[in-house]
């Protein structure tokens, strides 16, 4: 698998891209050989996605040149990139939910038989080929299923299958780009993906972006680090360590801050008690207690219902049986509005579609639920509103420090900080419900968000956490409630035992 007889798959020299004042990608030079798996890491907003979008033909570089397989690449659009053999799994899922799996996979590989020349879709061949590709990456999915009907993880698999599909479109060595494909996957699924990436090495080169450094260390041959648009480190995996990568990535590491777990659960006052909560078809008979100043984690594999429970407690879904008690009083006619009035807050997993109003400025996003000083009665006070927002920006170190910019233009980690600020601005926060709060966040941002969670605990809030990883739960929570197929399969009081192992929980999950 040496590069002796082949030109490098990718050569970048001095590639740059600027958005307004932000140099998202700043003069990057880089070479990738055939069969290499290169890890790309960096803080949120470091410019990783932008660099990859340039490779995919979605963005055009302002400066520099690209060569793919020894040929000068001057992509005018994504189509050119595909033809040159670049396959992409975007950070944002990019599937057509109203089309079938096969169509989403085979959309790009325009073949040259007579039917397709006439613009006619050959369903049989399309389905057969999709089935082949899916088989190759070991996913059992019906090619004729509508993507909108699939689970999120299955959709991610379709994305990957589609990216892998490029090898059919070119005789060259394909370059497969995976922008945070594992951010939304559970361990088991991520493992499938890992296996698949190893297989890809046989015929392709891969660029792999992730914030999970373990994963990077396991999968990649080489790791490059970006910071503020620049390439700051490029080393063989064997020659580096997680700590070194971390140091290279982070500009000013936030001080890790630990919340104090209670000495025993009984010591902490119950704030929200869930009894026998049931939502038909989603979860059954779920009971637990969220306590003042403590984190209660709901863990479970995809589809276990943990996210649903969180949403239901927040009033976003109806429940069919059971009760929710707040400060000892059961709630009735539960709704989001009532929940918020009772002091609940909810950070959804789907940040962009559910957690925020992307088109609105950061300041307005913060003012939308609890404007605090930013409003008096029904009226807004724009000046004060901006002051409040500026206060949060400074406290959470949101970058760029521009409260008037539409929130959608921030990177994920910074968006998440603003979403947190929106809820933390409440005068009296009683229960903070967090669904995958660290999804897609870099280490630094994750620390900042975790610090805020601890601060909320210190201020007396009860936290219900649906974590990305079990480690996260072990680290943060004083109690873990394990869900399996919509039912509580185990619960662990972490104030009493510290020897709980990951394997135990995984076993209870499946």
């Amino acid at each position: 698998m040496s590069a002796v007889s082949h030109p490098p798959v990718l050569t970048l020299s001095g590639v740059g891209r600027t958005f307004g004042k932000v140099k998202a990608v700043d003069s990057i030079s880089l070479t990738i050989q055939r069969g290499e798996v290169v890890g790309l890491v960096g803080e949120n907003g470091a410019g990783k996605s932008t660099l990859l979008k340039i490779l995919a033909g979605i963005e055009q570089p302002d400066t520099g040149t690209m060569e793919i397989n020894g040929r000068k690449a001057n992509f005018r659009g994504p189509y050119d990139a595909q033809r040159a053999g670049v396959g992409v799994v975007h950070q944002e899922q990019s599937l057509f939910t109203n089309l079938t799996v096969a169509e989403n996979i085979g959309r790009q590989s325009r073949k040259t038989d007579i039917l397709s020349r006439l613009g006619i879709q050959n369903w049989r061949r399309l389905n057969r080929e999709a089935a082949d590709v899916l088989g190759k990456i070991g996913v059992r999915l019906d090619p004729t299923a509508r993507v909108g009907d699939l689970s999120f993880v299955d959709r991610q698999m379709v994305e990957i299958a589609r990216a892998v599909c490029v090898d059919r479109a070119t005789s060259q060595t394909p370059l497969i780009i995976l922008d945070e494909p594992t951010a939304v996957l559970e361990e088991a699924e991520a493992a499938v993906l890992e296996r698949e990436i190893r297989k890809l090495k046989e015929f392709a080169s891969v660029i792999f972006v992730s914030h999970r450094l373990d994963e990077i260390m396991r999968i990649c041959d080489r790791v490059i680090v970006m910071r503020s648009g620049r390439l700051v480190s490029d080393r063989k995996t064997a020659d580096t360590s997680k700590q070194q990568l971390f140091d290279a990535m982070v500009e000013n590491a936030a001080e890790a801050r630990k919340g104090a777990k209670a000495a025993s659960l009984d010591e902490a006052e119950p704030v929200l008690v869930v009894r026998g909560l049931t939502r038909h078809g989603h979860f059954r008979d779920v009971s637990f207690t969220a306590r003042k100043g403590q984190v209660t984690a709901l863990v479970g594999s995809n589809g276990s219902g943990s996210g649903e429970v969180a949403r239901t407690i927040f009033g976003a879904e109806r429940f069919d049986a059971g009760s929710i008690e707040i400060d000892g009083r059961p709630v009735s006619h539960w709704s989001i509005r009532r929940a918020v009035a009772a002091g609940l807050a909810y950070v959804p997993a789907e940040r962009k579609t559910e957690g925020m109003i992307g088109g609105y400025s950061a300041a307005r996003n913060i003012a939308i639920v609890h404007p605090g000083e930013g409003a008096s009665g029904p009226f807004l006070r724009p000046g004060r509103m901006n002051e409040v927002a500026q206060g949060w920006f400074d406290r959470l170190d949101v970058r760029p420090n521009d409260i008037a910019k539409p929130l959608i233009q921030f990177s994920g980690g910074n968006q998440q900080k603003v979403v947190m600020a929106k809820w933390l601005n409440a005068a009296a926060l009683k229960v903070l419900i967090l669904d995958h709060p660290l999804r897609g966040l870099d280490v630094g941002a994750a620390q900042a968000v975790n610090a805020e969670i601890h601060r909320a605990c210190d201020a007396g809030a009860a936290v219900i956490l649906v974590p990305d990883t079990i480690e996260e739960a072990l680290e943060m929570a004083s109690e873990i409630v394990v869900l399996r197929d919509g039912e509580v399969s185990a619960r662990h009081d972490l104030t009493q035992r510290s020897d709980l192992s990951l394997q135990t929980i995984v076993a209870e999950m499946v």
Partner: protein
Amino acid sequence: MSFAHGDTNLMPKHGPGHAGAARSALSARWKASGGLLLSLLVLVVAFSFLNPRFSSIENLQNVLYQASVPLIIVVGTTLVIQMGSIDLSVQGVMGASGMAWILLSPNTRLDLDMAGWSWVLALGLGLAIGLLTGLIYAKLKVPSFVVTLGTWYVGLGIAILLYGNSLLPSLTDEGLARWPITPTLGLPNAFWLAFATVVIGTLVVRYTYLGRGILAIGNNETIARSGGMAVDRIKIAAFTIAGGLSGLAGILATMQLGSGSPDIGSSQLFTVIPAAVIGGTALKGGEGGVLQSALGVMLLIILNNGLVLAGVDPNYQSGVFGAILLIAIVAVAWPDRSRLKVEK
């Protein structure tokens, strides 16, 4: 009306191996058409009860004959709406094509019988207006609502200029004039023409890159673009087809009436867009289908026909029409209410 969220159903539905869930999702998608068929059935039964003539063969022929023009138009309308756009230009294009066709066919005004060429030129006019619409929409990025409002008047203007200020042209060729009503296999030719259009439309959506591209753009234009799809070309093609079909409808309507009029397409727009919407072709794009829209047309035509046959006071006709429509829409949507459902 139309929006950025491709998919408002944000919950994951089932993991690998949940075959049952797949079936239920499928049935959910058919539920809309099911509701429509049910409404249709209720109407037919109710109207037959009110006036037995309603369910006669004669009335079936009558309804199909009346439905043929909107059925042809609705195919184009559906393509455009599925793409997330809207086409208001129907009346103008119908007027222009219809007028061009009759002036070039044997008529009382102009002695310029061009036989087959009249079809080519008249349809070409419709296609050209559609092409113009598509170009302005895709290339100049003017919202389709406004472009087609503009081309509506452009088409009408062409029709009026063609019409000039002399005699109303009427068809002199008996064969042509009688063709739409002449039955084949018991049903009028006009209907068969519409039927063929609907079938072809359905096939185009199901079996061509164009049709799939239209659905893809309607689902998420950003992804379509970043996936390298020829978005502009598909947009232009969809509007051109819609223009051509409006042109065809204009010709058929002119033939049915036996004389030309620039206003030949008046009030069609307010049949076909509601029909598509009732048929479940959401204005945000990406959903619905030609067949469902065709069902929507049948519902509206039958509703109108039934109200006449049932002898509803004309003063109240639009009110009764609106009320029935309202009840049907609410009844179909009621079971699906949920806290996070978004309907624009």
